[in-house]
């Protein structure tokens, strides 16, 4: 019989949640094993980086890539797997748009290090800071240099599919694996290149069971400051800055159904270039005032616009990073 299609899963800078999500698909894992020849999956198996280099270009059928690009090594692996893979999937929020760690792009990388090494509990002892090359009594030691900004996978290589979520929901992962297997067996069509898979085409409100009326907001409220959160009414209408309206559907509106605002981990909907732009315009639209001063007062109740609008998508946004971060180094 002909050999099985090859499967790879790899991460760059990520937290491991995506891997856990994949493991949480339970029995489906076995389908992967029966239908694919798993050639590279460092967390799960004996994988030789060099073996991948040795493979023919395009010989891996499906590669799930999670994590963002934070250093040269991340980029190297990304480019290698792009060359070796027929279908490269940006898997999870980090790979798709940078995720929470992308917020680092609001400050220059040196500031990140300085801050981490000047906390209240850190010894000021000879103001030690990590250096990329340092000589110790026993010899020289090297640390990889951090890139000035976090970047999503697609800013380094072209990506065939995007699978959003922090992490992607297990049932969605299972569905995608099913689809690919069917496609390989010629029983199904793969979506057009560049498409987003394992998610809905609309936004979270579509899956949210909360009732909605016409929105008019005189002030945004912080969830912990609300005496009584109405369990059935749209959170945004209660003044809670919920990202649901702009966030792609697919999770099943988990957070809103748990009484917490959507924080936007599934990224933007189809055809959108910049998540923040969509959410910004949505919030601006529901502000109930035409008086410049009052508008400013209302906007003051949103203490952190950049963080609110780009919580997950900053690295993948049109601006990508603050100017000071871009210009660092």
């Amino acid at each position, binding site marked *: 019989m002909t050999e099985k299609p090859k499967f790879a899963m790899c991460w760059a800078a990520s937290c491991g949640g995506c891997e856990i999500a994949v493991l949480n698909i339970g029995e489906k894992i076995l389908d992967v094993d029966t239908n694919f020849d798993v050639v590279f999956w460092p967390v799960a198996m004996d994988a030789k980086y060099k073996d991948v280099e040795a493979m023919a270009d395009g010989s891996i059928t499906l590669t799930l890539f999670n994590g963002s690009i934070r250093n040269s090594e991340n980029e190297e692996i990304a480019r290698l797997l792009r060359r070796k893979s027929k279908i490269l999937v940006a898997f999870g929020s980090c790979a798709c748009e940078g995720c929470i760690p992308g917020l680092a792009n609001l400050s220059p990388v040196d500031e990140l290090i300085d801050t981490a090494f000047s906390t209240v509990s850190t010894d000021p002892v000879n103001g030690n800071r990590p250096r990329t090359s340092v000589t110790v009594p026993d010899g020289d030691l090297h640390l990889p240099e951090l890139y000035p900004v976090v970047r999503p996978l697609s800013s380094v*290589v072209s990506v065939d599919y995007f699978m959003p979520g922090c992490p992607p929901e297990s049932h969605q992962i299972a569905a995608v694996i099913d689809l690919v297997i069917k496609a390989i067996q010629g029983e199904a069509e793969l979506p057009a290149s560049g498409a987003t898979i394992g998610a809905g085409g*609309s*936004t979270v409100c579509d899956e949210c069971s909360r009732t*909605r009326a016409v*929105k008019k907001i005189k002030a945004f409220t912080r969830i912990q400051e609300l005496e009584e959160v109405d369990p059935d009414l749209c959170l945004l209408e209660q003044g809670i800055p919920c990202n649901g309206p702009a966030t792609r559907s697919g999770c099943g509106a988990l957070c809103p159904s748990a009484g917490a605002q959507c924080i936007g981990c599934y990224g933007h909907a189809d055809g959108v270039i910049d998540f923040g732009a969509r959410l910004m315009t949505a919030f601006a639209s529901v502000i109930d005032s035409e008086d410049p001063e009052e508008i400013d007062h209302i906007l003051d109740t949103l203490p952190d616009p950049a963080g609110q609008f780009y919580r997950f998508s900053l690295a993948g946004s049109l601006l990508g990073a603050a100017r000071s971060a871009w210009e660092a180094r």
Partner: protein
Amino acid sequence: MIAPISGGAGMSGNGGRPRIGVYVCHCGSNIAGTVDVTELRTWVERRLAARGVVVARDYKFMCSSLGQDLIAKDIAEHRLDRVVVAACSPHLHEATFRTACRRAGLNPYLCELASIREQVSWVHTDTASATEKAKAVVSGAVERVARNAPLETLRVPVHPATLVVGGGIAGIQAALEIAEAGHPVYLVERDPSIGGHMAQFDKTFPTLDCSACILTPRMVSAGSHENITLLTWSEVERVDGYVGNFTATIRKKARYVDIDQCTGCGICQEKCPKRVIDNVYEAGLGYRKAIYTPFPQAVPKYPVIDQPNCTYFIKGKCRACEKFCPTGAISFEQEDEFVTIDVGNIVLATGYDLFDPRRVTQYGYGRLANVFSSLEFERMTNSAGPTNGEIVLRDGRTKPTSVGIIHCVGSRDRNYNNYCSSICCMQSLKFAHLVKERTGATVYNFYIDMRTPAKAYDEFYQRVLEEGTLFVRGKVAEVTDAARGPGEEGKLIIQTEDTLAGRQRRIPVDMVVLSAALEPRKDSSEVAKRFGISCSHDGWFIEKHPKLDPVATMTEGVFIAGCATGPKDIPATVAQGAAAAARVLGYIQQGEIEMEPIRAQVIVERCSGCRICNDLCPFNAIDFIADRGVTEINPALCQGCGTCVAACPAGAIEGTGFSNEQVVAQIDGLLLRNLEPTAVEPALV
């Protein structure tokens, strides 16, 4: 770097790379004088070929028939599916070139104008930088047009009836024109009678023919016309729907007179014991009864009971009118009544309010007895008026020996209104003439500038000059009765600067007439909102285009005429009434209306029903379909502003004609990002 806008799927309907023709107009030397058109054309050829440009030409006058033929020829020969004309502002020639394209078999919306005249050659001087900017502008237009979709204009049926709001001469004119053409009209007037301000005048400048003589026949035929439903003592409460299909709700205020019984004999008015100062028609100079028709020639002839002033309504007894009415038409139980009507078009001719001269305290109106407002003076000179046409002081007897007429009261004055009320000069000249004619008094006209532009106006000015009226050029500082010398005793002294003589003057007179400004109706902004149109900051209704479309508004099917759009004399007002009627008739004639296909549209499968957009449309075009949990947009109500498109957090609303694709591509084109290669590891398959 930003990846280039690539051709292909997203770009042109026919798939693959579009075939764009670019035409650079010299506009004689208007453009070519500043922009190096040859350099521009060759740059387009060289750099934009990869973007789909297959033909680039420059030509002396693209808008000429030869220029248009040039495009038509290329569309055929080079199978162009897109056209960019780099010329003047789209507001000038977009229609021209789109029509040219349509004639050549290309959908007109696949043609874009790049304004390199108004926005480049006319505003910049340095050829090099102007040419560079022109390149960017054209590049932007090329990227945009590549993503234009062929569009078809929307068509909606037109209800043949028309609502005319305002029974002044403008409204009457419009109503008659439409009715004469054989279509039903509802003429709504808030006062008891139609006629408006014109009914209060005696003579009309410059011909001095009697106002009543020319107006009354019009009022009568409007009142009796089989196609006109007169709704006086009525106001429009609300308006729904859209062009061709409006529904208006009208409040018919209680008249307390059953017009089916009333013959208009007038006995009730004789018998009514209650006299009321008539502040409206008689400008406070005369009296009327508590049951009244505003003036003898009123149309309709039925009176109304002035409820707040009627003894019965105050004290609960009297009912004199009821007692004496031969037909038992009086009915105190009457209540406001609401009627809803369906109409296809609306004409707003709501007129103006007169500036209250009390506001200019230094002129003493209301304080100094013999200072009169222009309207008071109109009534005084009216043979049917309170003084039977006698020009006398407040005492009602003494003829003035000297009269001062002050122009521009409340106009051309930054404290009140910056604009010129346009009729005051002629009105003041008319007053001067009437004073001379009827009293032989010395007349002074105090003016800032004399404005007599229209037909036979300046001749009238010359005539008044010859009659010996004295003209003092300068703004009057004050009117006072504080005499400084024997000559001023018991007189009104007009303190003014004589800018021709170059000195201050004090001129004692017996009577002062203030030519008050015309102002927008107090409630003009509410009215505008009700009809979905807008007002300028000083309160006049805004026309769709001040020159090219003066009687249309941004809201299709709602037209404006007369002083509601700004001060006008009677001829201009009548002309506008007729013009509005003509526009309405045009629509009715077509049976359906073509609407610009620039509209917003919901991609239902992307709509999450978040309802962010629901409150954004002032035209109520956005509906939430509760059972399906999605929002939809009514294309007929949508005016195409695109606010909801920009607001949709899901990117689920498309803006036809101004899609994100088009605008973003244009931005990239303007910034010349479209000339760059991409820099990522490409996909394999």
